[in-house]
């Protein structure tokens, strides 16, 4: 022991902690042809974990409220457990369940951080004290056995994942023993899906609010996309399935399916969701999915609607993959491109698998990167397509393999068109480049005056934008060297809300925007939000702190990435959100009211009958290299047409088109009826308290 201690300073911790687990879920371990690939070893970045496991990101607590008991928590550092890559996969050992949720959730988190190029933060906890406003949440809680039902969900209020278990009623009794217990926490797909909900909530807090039919569907779809593409990171599984489908991943295969056991257990034949096909109700045979553009117009239930987006992304992936392997297939078939009968050569399988893995990782990264280019509220699938295309065009100038076309085509085939663009081309899908900024450096010196700016703004706004930009560069310089997530959170909060002590003084971003833009019609035009004097008349609250219009700054972050040809982007991104109170009577807009403080959520008394809060938001992307505002991706609260022109007396109006669409959506009983459970036990669509718990009820 002594010798070990002396050397310990020189000893590096291992890069990985290896933990065994299911690649899919326990049901596949019982099928002869999949048993061999279902047990895999997850390689998790090494970190110190306490019993639970409890690590930097996660806190697994195995309390079962249905019997009011704790199950013994696993100690992943225990000698024997370390020596054999974690506990044996087992349905009957709750400690393995804890290990499984930890392994899958950590894998998902790390995949995200790879795609985003930064550390992920959980969404902070809101508190009633207006001064504190929100608190840092270091760890997501995971409760592996929290419910007795066929359900698992992410709770945004508790910052926790709750997994259920239930007794099965299978349609096919040969796969699953009837009445056997099914644990949702043992399904890779379900754990990855729920973890993604939590990560997405940390980035886009308002995507929990269903303001149009796509919002909750997007949450579901995105979570499924992540779970699906994660299948491609398991090499054994990938090779096995490539061999089985002879390289054609458009055929039925495990990689494109989600939650096998769950699907079978609740009494259906196939998996819970399948991106490329489904089981025919009549013939019980799998058949490939043919995209139907009507679906996007008619299907409103969030999971089904989400499936449209998942299928679109998966199709884009498949066409890129097919494109990438045509040469391999020609090489392997003497130039004909048609493979011979029989099994594939193992070398070919390896090469195909490597192409598939690469393509999947590219496609997933495109999907994840796009999140930084999304509006902060009210997202639609069309917005997401534009975000994917813009983000990719920003990073990858030369799209030789036509990735972007593959995405556009797949979306088009499903009738998903973004609002307000005239043609479906890469150019028109990309958000317009703004290049606004009479840029100044960190010391406040003017660098240049851009004559080619796409928007003609008054010089004052231009200059102010430059100052903001300089401030953001300062933030980026500071945050670059910080690795600790709590410090990232704290410093970012200081830069947003301002901070001062003996040595430092930071005038916060919130305050700066308020001071500089509180009466700027041009800034209103850029953001689509109310930054003018009579904001009160449009139902926008006055800020208790700064006196100007009240708004919220979210998600200030530095985005720096390196593209395939060493293109580098250095950006600072943040979102501004604003809300106003609106009242409807007999289906028509009636008047505005000033909504109560956001921290008093849940109290009903102050909101008038028939009213709801209407939210607008804008994601601003600043380029640090040119010190310009590059993109403003907006869901306008204000009708931008009422802000056009140079007249100082422009009279801003509410964005009635969006407002009415939202009202219609919130009050359509078919949408309200996401399921019967919501109708009976929900709190109304515009204030769902546990949106994800409700979604999965059946």
């Amino acid at each position: 022991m002594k010798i070990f201690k002396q050397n310990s300073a020189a000893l590096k911790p291992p890069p990985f902690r290896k933990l065994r687990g299911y690649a899919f879920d326990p049901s596949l371990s019982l099928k002869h042809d999949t048993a061999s690939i279902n047990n895999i070893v997850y390689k998790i970045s090494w970190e110190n974990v306490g019993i639970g496991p409890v690590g930097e990101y996660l806190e697994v607590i195995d309390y079962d409220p249905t019997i009011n008991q704790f199950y013994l928590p696993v100690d992943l550092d225990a000698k024997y457990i370390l020596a054999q890559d974690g506990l044996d996969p087992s349905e009957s050992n709750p400690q393995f369940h804890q290990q499984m949720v930890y392994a899958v959730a950590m894998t998902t988190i790390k995949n995200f951080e790879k795609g985003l190029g930064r550390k992920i933060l959980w969404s902070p906890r809101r508190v009633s004290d207006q001064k504190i406003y929100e608190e840092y949440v270091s760890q997501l809680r995971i409760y592996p056995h929290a419910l007795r039902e066929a359900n698992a969900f992410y709770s945004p209020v508790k910052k926790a994942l709750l997994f259920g278990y239930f007794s099965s009623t299978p349609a096919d009794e040969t796969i699953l023993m009837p009445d056997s217990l099914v644990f949702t926490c043992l399904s890779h797909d379900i754990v990855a899906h729920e973890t993604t909900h939590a990560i997405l909530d940390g980035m886009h807090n308002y995507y929990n609010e269903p303001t149009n039919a796509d919002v909750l569907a997007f949450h579901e779809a995105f979570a499924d996309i992540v779970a699906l593409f994660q299948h491609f990171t398991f090499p054994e599984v990938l090779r096995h399935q490539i061999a089985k489908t002879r390289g054609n991943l458009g055929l039925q295969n495990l990689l494109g399916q989600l939650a096998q056991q769950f699907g079978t257990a609740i009494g259906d034949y196939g998996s819970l969701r399948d991106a490329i096909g489904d089981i025919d109700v009549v013939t019980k045979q799998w058949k490939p999915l043919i995209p139907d553009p009507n679906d996007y117009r008619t299907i409103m239930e969030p999971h089904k609607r989400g499936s449209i987006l998942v299928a679109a992304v998966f199709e884009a992936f498949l066409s890129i993959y097919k494109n990438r392997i045509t040469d391999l297939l020609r090489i392997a078939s003497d130039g004909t491109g048609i493979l011979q009968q029989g099994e594939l050569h193992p070398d070919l399988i390896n090469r195909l698998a490597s192409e598939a893995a690469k393509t999947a990782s590219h496609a997933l990264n495109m999907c994840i990167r796009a999140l930084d280019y999304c509006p902060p509220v009210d997202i639609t699938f069309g917005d997401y397509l534009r975000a994917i295309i813009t983000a990719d065009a920003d990073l990858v100038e030369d799209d030789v393999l036509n990735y972007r076309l593959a995405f556009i085509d797949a979306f088009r085939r499903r009738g998903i068109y973004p609002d307000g663009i005239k043609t479906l081309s890469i150019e028109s899908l990309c958000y317009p480049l703004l290049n606004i900024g009479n840029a100044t450096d960190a010391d406040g010196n003017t660098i240049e005056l851009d004559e080619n700016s796409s928007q003609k703004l008054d010089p004052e706004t231009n200059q102010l934008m430059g100052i903001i930009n300089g401030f953001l560069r300062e933030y980026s310089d500071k945050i670059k060297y910080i690795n600790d997530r709590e410090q990232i959170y704290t410093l970012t909060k200081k830069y947003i809300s301002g901070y001062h002590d003996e040595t430092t003084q930071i005038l916060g971003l919130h305050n700066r925007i308020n001071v500089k833009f509180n009466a700027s019609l041009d800034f209103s035009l850029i953001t689509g939000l109310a930054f003018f004097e009579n904001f009160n008349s449009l139902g926008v609250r006055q800020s208790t702190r700064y006196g100007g219009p009240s708004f919220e700054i979210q998600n200030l972050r530095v985005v720096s990435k390196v593209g395939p040809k060493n293109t580098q982007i250095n950006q600072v991104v943040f979102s501004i959100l604003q809300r106003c109170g609106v009242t409807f009577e007999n289906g028509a807009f009636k008047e505005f009211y000033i909504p109560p403080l956001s921290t008093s959520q849940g109290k009903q008394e102050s909101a008038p009958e028939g009213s709801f809060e209407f939210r607008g938001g804008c994601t601003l992307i600043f380029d640090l290299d040119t010190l310009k505002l590059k993109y403003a991706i907006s869901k306008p609260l204000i009708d931008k047409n009422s802000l056009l022109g140079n007249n100082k007396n422009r009279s801003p109006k509410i964005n009635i088109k969006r407002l009415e669409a939202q009202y219609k959506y919130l009050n359509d009983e078919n949408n309200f009826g996401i399921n019967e459970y919501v109708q009976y036990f929900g709190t109304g669509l515009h204030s769902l308290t546990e949106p994800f718990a409700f979604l999965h009820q059946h």
Partner: protein
Amino acid sequence: MPKSTISKKTAQRKVHKKIIHANEINTASVRMYCMGTGDCFIVKFGNDESDVFTMMIDCGSCSGGPKEFEPYVKNLADYVNKKIDLLIVTHEHNDHVNGFAKCASIFKQFEIKEAWFGWTENTEDPNGYAQKLKNKQGKMKLALNNAICEIKKRNKTLEKSNLDSYQKNIFLKSSEALMNGLDTLELINVSDGDKKGEELPGMLAIKKILKDKKVKIRYLNPGDIITIPGIPSLKFYILGPPTDRNYIFKDGKLGADVYKKNFELYNSSLAAEAFLNLSKDSLNYKDLPFASYYLVEQNDREVRSQINSYKGPKNEWRKIDNNWLNNAGSLELRINSHINNTSLAFAVEFDKTKEVMLFPGDAEYGSWESWHNIEKWKNKGKDGKHLVEDLLNRTIFYKVGHHLSYNGTALEKGISMMTNSELFSMATLDRNRIAKNWKSTMPNKYLLQELIQKCDGKLIIMDEFEIKNGPSEILDPKTLGENIYETDQFNNGNTIYKQYNLHINQ
């Protein structure tokens, strides 16, 4: 007191001077009593000379006590002269049976010739199927009640807790919504007081009255075809409740997505078990998902940190003690749908014209679907169709299922097949008097519009209060003439009944 209602028929009968056989049937008057959302029908079959046969279907409403029921039931008693040829009790939900208990003393005076129930009520069946089902329902109802009590208890604790008000408000709001929903369905499904697991008082009351009076009771199965002795011109086709367990438990809005609800009562069994254990003091070791050595002992030092982390006051807001209780909602929905699917659903055919009246009770999709699979009716309809499809094609009167909710009328296997241009419908919905959370589902506006279109506006709703684009905007039923549509009011202006007089084409 009701205004005197002189039968308009009397006047009209004198016009026809045809010789009519005593038991011939060419009229049917369907009277819907309007005592609030819930079913109570009198159907008098007859001819231009006299009434031949009186049928009563259900007696219940979502709201009101004996006092509110009494005037309606008295009117009913007068109307039928306290004589019922056939009483049909469709299913055990309060909005279909509670009138029998609330006005038991009136019904005791009735002379009832025969009564019909679905096979699911036949607790004396030697096979024990119905009894088994009843036991299961009873157990589920008990579990449900346990859960509801616990939810209410914990809600009180929550109110007093010193949780940050931001989270607390959210939790309170959702628990309030949950309780509202639970109360709504409990009102329909569960008995009051300490009899939670037992049959509903209305069902018990009418069964007792029938037993005391030694009334002949028939328990019916799908596929039965019945004619009443002496009245050969009416044929009763029994459609549901389904005998195949796959259907009786099945809900379903069609679709391949498995998120469609699965209404097998058993699916909630694991939660139900835990609900039942709530009333016990000690841990039920039979109910553990894992071997008991995985449980943390009280004195386990090593795991103290975890327990403290969970129970510490700082982390109060992250506790999950109550989330699982929300499953009571799913359980309740299952019980509710399941009992709807035990509805005695039937069709009455007029032998002469082959026209059909359809009374599905509150049957939901699973039951509707099963009708089309009744084995012995395969190819027995016109042009080799299944008889049920044929019956639906010939339907000229439809008692709308489940108060115009989406669940109560199948689309492709129901309304789409009702193609007869004579179709007339009645729906027992009154948004003045309705279980609170039913308001969000009734009427389903798409179904409503579909029905209005199918019937050319000939859809009578108990009360169109709060209903937008109701059928009366298309067609005011009063314009149909008094020999087709009748209604009457109490002195206080409340509608007593709405009545449709059907004349069979000859």
